[in-house]
């Protein structure tokens, strides 16, 4: 039936082609289901194995040789402190870079290099950042296998995410806002500070949260800088009783983080430790889910509320 000659032929052809539409739609739903069901299987499997293990003790105990007494205290405290360093470094740097590239940068070769470079950095495997940190932060700068090294490493890792989110948020601000402010005699920085930054805050926040949720689950670069897998003490407290009340000793302390603790437990042959791994993994997934969910929610609100 090379050519449709009669009405019946044409009808048959239409039915045949429409059938393909249906078949592909079904394949599409199936493919989507494979992805979603995998996620559900992963989540439910960990919940079934891990949730019975979750208790207050699990969060307030140090890791131990006895799986029943082991907990994730040093891991979650370590994760929080590393995240703090990462946020303090990555957010200002990323937002400043984004503002520079969108509002200030002239179209020249330096700008091109910076832009191409950011695109390429987003594709560099995370373990390579670990090697950078090992060679540069740990040994060359002498920061050691510390919270500071880990926080800086993860900050560099998520910098492209923050920059790209900042740029997208800034780009969606209509040019009329800038022109209005310039017409009233505002300088570039006044426009950026009073208009660009406030209007792009929600978009930037989304990017920062997604970046942080990626950083909190990163294992490879932190293993590479040589974080210990067995830590049964806490870093020195950032707040002290006597003046000046703030201590930065914790920055140089050895540490462990949630994903490393989970890796340690997963790679042990005893089933009891694997239950611990499931529990730690469940907590980790909940944290990243909560962060991603928050980011998705902010973006959703943003799309609904902003009408320029």
């Amino acid at each position, binding site marked *: 039936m090379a050519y449709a000659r009669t009405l019946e032929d044409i009808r048959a052809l239409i039915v045949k082609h429409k059938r393909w539409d249906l078949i592909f739609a079904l394949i599409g739903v199936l*493919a989507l289901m494979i992805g979603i069901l995998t996620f559900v299987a992963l989540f439910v499997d960990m919940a079934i194995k891990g949730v019975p293990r979750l208790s207050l003790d699990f969060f307030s105990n140090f890791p131990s040789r006895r799986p029943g007494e082991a907990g994730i205290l040093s891991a979650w405290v370590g994760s929080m402190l590393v995240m703090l360093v990462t946020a303090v470094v990555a957010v200002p740097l990323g937002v400043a870079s984004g503002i520079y590239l969108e509002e200030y940068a002239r179209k020249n070769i330096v700008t091109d290099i910076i832009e191409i470079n950011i695109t390429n950095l987003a594709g560099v495997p*995370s*373990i390579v950042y670990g090697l950078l940190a090992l060679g540069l932060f740990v040994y060359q700068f002498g920061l050691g296998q510390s919270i500071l090294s880990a926080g800086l490493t993860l900050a560099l890792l998520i910098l492209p995410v923050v920059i790209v989110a900042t740029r997208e948020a800034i780009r969606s601000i209509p040019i009329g806002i800038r022109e209005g402010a310039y017409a009233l005699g505002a300088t570039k920085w006044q426009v950026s500070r009073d208009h660009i930054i406030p209007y792009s805050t929600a978009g930037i926040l989304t990017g920062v949260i997604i970046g942080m949720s990626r950083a909190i689950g990163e294992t*490879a670069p932190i293993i590479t800088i040589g974080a210990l897998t067995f830590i049964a003490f806490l870093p020195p407290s950032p707040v002290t009783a006597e003046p000046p009340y703030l201590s930065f000793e914790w920055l140089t302390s050895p540490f462990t983080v949630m994903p490393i603790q989970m*890796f340690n437990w997963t790679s042990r042959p005893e089933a009891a430790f694997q239950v611990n791994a499931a529990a730690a993994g469940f907590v980790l997934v909940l944290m990243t889910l909560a962060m991603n969910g928050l980011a998705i929610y902010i973006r959703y609100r943003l799309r609904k509320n902003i009408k320029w």
Partner: protein
Amino acid sequence: MSAVATSVSTIMPSGPQSARLVRRLGRNVKERLIEGMLFLAALVSVLTTVGILYVLLKESYVFFQHVSIVDFLTDTQWTPLFDDAHFGIMVLLSGTLTSSMVALSIAIPLGTIIAVYLSEFAPFAVREIAKPFLELLGGVPTIVYGYFALLFVTPILQALIPGLPGFSLLAAGIVMGIMIIPYVSSIAEDAMRAVPMHLREGSYAMGATRFQTATRVVVPAAFSGIASAYILGISRAVGETMILAVAAGMQPNLTFNPLEPAATITAYIVQVALGDLPHGSIGYQTIFAAGLTLMLLTLVFNVIGHLLRKKYREAY
């Protein structure tokens, strides 16, 4: 800044006009300072690249003074920590390539189908629900996927394939493929949605069905973007670490059989980092040589992707 102000006031006439000039000058200096600071922040990302290249090349240079490049590329054994040391990167490369092939043979077809479905077929509500779900799938920490591959997928595969060892490239590769699906599908979908509506309308006006429009108009028009999605997927697969370190074993093994356990470049780096190698030893330097190989590998794929994009870019 005050020094600038006084030097200006000496050459300017006094009065309210000069006060304004001084103020404007101060403002310009401040503007310049802020611009400089923002520029320095933007430069950090360039410095990161420079730092990566510096560290990798410096340590690899020392490494290649001990080991000839020919041995590195042609030796069929990887035993850097044994007395009889061999440094054949092929061994680790085979693990990386095999696991990546498994992952991509899952991620590319499924990712593409999902992208076409979401962009051309799915009702609005389905897309609004499915996209965040896929994003969550991409946001799960890789160590969790490693756990899933080792303790959930491997037992299932062992039931299906008798004799499958407890560590295998297959289990790790499959889970890695599922992890990569969202990266491929979201970028490919963005590319397809960027295809102008009038191309579709033209196609429908000619009597084409959805499927025909999708495969013969939208996909070819979005090909450069889809190619970028594939390249990103490949880089993710090649650079993935924790799933392989947990589920594929860390035993160097020159094989292209996914049913065997084998170490990848990334898993080897993790293995060495977990041990206690002294700074400056040959074992310490091998991980930088391995990292350099990994960087070059991803660079090759990125260049291919760039060329593909250039060749097939459609402008509207």
